[in-house]
């Protein structure tokens, strides 16, 4: 309950600021949450770069509280009706519902990258109140990933303690802000569009499911940044399309246009400013001026801060918006878009949007570079990059265009050819090429084109039709640009020979697919809201065609009760269409509404075909987190034994690295030492003495002791007999306490002579002449020494490392 209220406080702060912005500017209420959330993300990250993250977060919370107080105090002035738009209500209701659901169910982290980056980053940020890259972690931290999502999530854990479900709630709130932007200018009279629109937006992350899930689907229950970034890009496009449509719409247009109270009306001191200055400064507030488009810069900046691949996506968003503004700006035929008076301000906006992304990208690079110098442990060119991004683009383009590459490019020529062929192949239909609910990349492109074509075919607004056609062309060009960019990163950045470097292909590409569909759907909604153009048989054939598609897909849907419900829904829509056709209606408008309804039904059907709702965020069984819960309990039991500055060495004979990442995450802020990256210790006997070996498995007894000596404790997770054969001599009890399940933790001690009598928890036998600690232990001669000196001491022939079992309560397996 406390966690719920604390998370709700952060959410309410964003809601209150959004409400204030919506109430006092011309921005439609549903278009306020997305720039506010993106602005919060940018604000926190920039503050983090300046080393004042905590004050900035507190200030943001205070701004939220002040906004709420102001809204309540000035309630008599009204202006709240504007907030009751479908999008804004959806943002508030869905955000609160997600927080409530997660607070009750308490989902846990379970994915590899959650432990190696995303969830760990938020936990580090929360524990140290700095950008996660600067937080101490004790292993070669690849902290070059952008900090936007972890820092935004940090705001939701500001009050109270870190829990990963609060991170999921933060992600969900960001997605809800996108939903609101997609519904954008729809008013309650468009509720027939808003309902299916909300359904499609909820199901949009599932667009990336490509086969029937028989295990739990962790969409919405994951901290990975790929899908949120894609949806954020789609949201930015949707936000722009709504704002631009409203700018060019006449005052009596179909879309929601409710003026705000205006800043000068609401804040008395502003009234004393000279009229000319007031008009210039606050032209975009209240009733004066048009919908401002500069907030898109906040969104492009936020997209850049989501992931390393955010910059090209942000530039694509800015490019699409600029071209749309230029060619579909709503000018009359006499006003050529190429006149300087017309295009120059628009170019200025594009520069602003692109600068929002570029400046943050450069700032992020500078910040990481400064840490790299300071820590000496992070790359300055990205995670494992072999060449700079500039060289990558130049050499990659040369290879792509068949121009003789430079020295760097020539090294990658073979790898480039292999990856180029593979990526072309993966885009086309083929066995195992299905990566979305509609199939391979080509089918996604056709799907997007079909949605845009349907909208353009039926839409009643000329400029909207042009906007949809332009989006079809530009987003397709953007896709190929992004596809080539991802290909270049596989060639030049990812390690591995040939196509072996193509890891997580679908995860990276799906980001664009989600954005693509989101943008197309937002345009379809806008077109539907503005009415239909054709009043003929053709319109209905198009709409019914989509319905028929839904019906066909329905045939293989699973779950009888669900099938009946969805069948009823589709039949209802089809019945409407049939009535229309039967009567040969010629004057019916609004034929895009059934198309949107059919699309939502189609999404719902595909969702139920591929995902079992009882194995998704909707109703997942708790047992999927049994293992995670068990590890959390064990880590808590271990943490209870540790002092704040203790470091721990981890051993797991059967680990592929995940176990180590998990304990590293769970033990934070306690430091789990690198421990060879969690590699296994199974073949130590065979590998003992192997020269040049640097993995945990290839460590000799002395090397292992030297590595462990830098830590205060040894944590044993899983061991095989070979481990005890190799390293058993180091343990005071030969490992008996661990093997009998009494402990997982051994204290690292340096002693003057080897082979004392076995030390037990209750009976410490001190050889003659040895100093005894105040607590009855044989004195650890390394006590109080810095870790480097402790290691030097170990190299002294007179000392030896001994591992002493620690008494603790080990949670049952």
């Amino acid at each position, binding site marked *: 309950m406390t966690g719920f209220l604390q998370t709700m406080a952060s959410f309410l702060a964003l809601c209150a600021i959004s409400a204030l912005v919506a109430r006092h500017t011309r921005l439609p209420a549903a278009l306020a949450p997305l720039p506010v959330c993106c602005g919060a993300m940018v604000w926190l990250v920039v503050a983090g770069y300046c080393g004042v993250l905590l004050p900035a977060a507190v200030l943001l919370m205070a701004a939220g509280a002040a906004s709420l107080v102001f809204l309540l105090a000035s309630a008599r002035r009204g202006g709240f009706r504007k907030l009751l738009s479908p999008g804004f209500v959806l943002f508030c209701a869905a955000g609160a519902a997600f927080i409530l659901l997660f607070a009750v169910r308490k989902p846990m982290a379970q994915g590899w990258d959650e432990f190696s980056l995303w969830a760990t980053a938020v936990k580090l940020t929360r524990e140290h109140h700095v950008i996660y890259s600067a937080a101490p972690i004790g292993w070669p931290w690849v902290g070059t990933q952008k900090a936007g999502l972890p820092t935004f999530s940090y705001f939701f854990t500001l009050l109270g303690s870190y829990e990963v479900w609060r991170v999921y709630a933060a992600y969900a709130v960001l997605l809800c802000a996108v939903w609101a932007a997609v519904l954008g200018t729809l008013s309650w009279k468009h509720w027939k569009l808003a*309902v299916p629109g909300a359904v499609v937006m909820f199901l949009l992350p599932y667009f990336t499911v490509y086969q029937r899930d028989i295990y739990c689907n962790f969409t919405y229950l994951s901290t990975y940044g790929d899908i949120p970034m894609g949806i954020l890009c789609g949201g930015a496009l949707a936000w722009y399309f709504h704002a631009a449509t409203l700018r060019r719409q006449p005052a009596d247009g179909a879309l929601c246009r409710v003026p705000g109270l205006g800043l000068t009306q609401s804040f008395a001191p502003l009234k004393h400013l000279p009229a000319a200055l007031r008009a210039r400064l606050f032209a975009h507030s209240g009733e004066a001026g048009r919908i401002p488009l500069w907030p898109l810069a906040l969104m492009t900046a936020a997209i850049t801060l989501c992931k390393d691949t955010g910059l090209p996506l942000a530039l694509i968003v800015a490019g699409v918006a600029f071209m749309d503004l230029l060619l579909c700006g709503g000018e009359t035929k006499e006003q050529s878009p190429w006149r300087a008076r017309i295009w120059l301000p628009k170019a200025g906006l594009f520069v602003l949007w692109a600068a929002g992304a570029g400046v943050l990208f450069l700032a992020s690079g500078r910040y990481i570079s400064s840490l790299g110098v300071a820590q000496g442990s992070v790359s300055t060119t990205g995670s494992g990059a072999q060449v700079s991004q500039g060289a990558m683009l130049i050499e990659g383009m040369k290879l792509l265009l068949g121009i003789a590459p430079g020295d760097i490019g020539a090294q990658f020529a073979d790898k480039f050819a292999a990856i180029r062929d593979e990526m072309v192949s993966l885009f086309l239909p083929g066995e195992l090429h299905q990566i979305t609910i509609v199939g391979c990349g080509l089918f996604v492109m056709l799907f997007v084109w079909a949605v845009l074509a349907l909208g353009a075919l039926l839409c009643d607004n000329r400029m909207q039709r042009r906007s949809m056609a332009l989006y079809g062309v530009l987003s397709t060009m953007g896709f190929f640009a992004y596809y080539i960019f991802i290909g270049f990163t596989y060639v030049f950045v990812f390690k591995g020979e040939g196509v072996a470097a193509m890891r997580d292909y679908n995860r990276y590409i799906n980001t664009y697919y989600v954005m693509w569909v989101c943008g197309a759907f937002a345009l379809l909604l806008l077109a539907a809201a503005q009415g239909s153009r054709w009043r003929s048989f053709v319109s209905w054939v198009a709409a019914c065609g989509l319905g028929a598609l839904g019906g066909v897909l329905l045939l293989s849907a699973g779950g009888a009760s669900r099938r009946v419900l969805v069948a009823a829904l589709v039949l209802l829509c089809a019945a409407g269409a049939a009535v229309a056709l039967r009567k040969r209606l010629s004057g019916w408008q609004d034929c895009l509404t059934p198309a949107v309804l059919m699309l939502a039904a189609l999404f719902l059907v595909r969702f139920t075909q591929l995902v079992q709702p009882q194995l998704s965020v909707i109703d997942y069984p708790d047992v999927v987190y049994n293992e995670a819960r068990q590890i959390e309990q064990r880590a808590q039991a271990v943490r209870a034994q540790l002092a704040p500055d203790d470091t721990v060495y981890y051993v797991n004979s059967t680990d592929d690295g995940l176990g180590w990442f998990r304990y590293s995450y769970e033990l934070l802020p306690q430091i789990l030492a690198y421990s060879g990256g969690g590699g296994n210790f199974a073949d130590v006997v065979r590998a003992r003495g192997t020269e040049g070996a640097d993995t945990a498995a290839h460590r000799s007894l002395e090397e292992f002791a030297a590595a462990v000596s830098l830590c205060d404790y040894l944590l044993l997770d899983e061991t095989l007999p070979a481990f005890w054969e190799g390293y058993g001599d180091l343990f005071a009890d030969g490992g008996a306490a661990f093997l009998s399940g009494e402990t997982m933790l051994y204290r690292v001690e340096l002693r003057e002579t080897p082979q004392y009598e076995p030390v037990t928890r209750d009976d410490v036998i001190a050889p003659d002449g040895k100093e005894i600690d105040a607590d009855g232990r044989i004195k650890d001669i390394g006590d109080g020494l810095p870790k480097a000196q402790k290691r030097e001491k170990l190299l002294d022939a007179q000392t030896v490392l001994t591992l002493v079992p620690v008494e603790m309560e080990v949670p049952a397996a």
Partner: protein
Amino acid sequence: MTKKQVLRLIGLCYGIVLMWNLGFAIYDAAADAIARATGTLQTRTLDFTDFETFQMTIESPTRAVTAGSDPQLILRTPGTRVVGAAFTIHFSEDPGEVTLYYAQEGEEFSSEKKIWGKPKNDGSYVFTLPRTRIDTLRVDPTNQPGLTMELESFTLNGARDFLSYFSFTYEDLFFFLICPGMAAAALAYVLERISARKSRT
């Protein structure tokens, strides 16, 4: 449509779906009561020896040890219509996934016909099965090898509280939120078009 009519329509759609679900719950309760009265639905108490087992060693009717990561208890021809199963098993360790499969005669077990168990506060697992013909049940009580299971009770078609027929899951809630809303939108669209047509003619 006026605002009032729209609200009425939405309320009507939600009301109809709610009544539909309540009606089905009452129908299920009544059907079970009649079936019990006529003997087609019987409560059966089982122990480990009543099942075919896989990757499991039966030490006594109420004690078994798993011998692999996919132990199974398979019940063929249960001798009654099956609408529910409930068991309480004390595991020596956390059992991990507890699932139940159901199938008709000659049909393979599949993940399409699988129910995931959720332990209740008293440690028991209760499965409500779909109202379809079921000839074979398979219980996967754990996915852990070397685990000892002490069976306290295993009941087929145990007596149900009348109110339990009205309990709902998060999944039910999700579809209850979405489907009537979508149906209302579609219905409103059709009604508006018909109304517009009439006013023109």
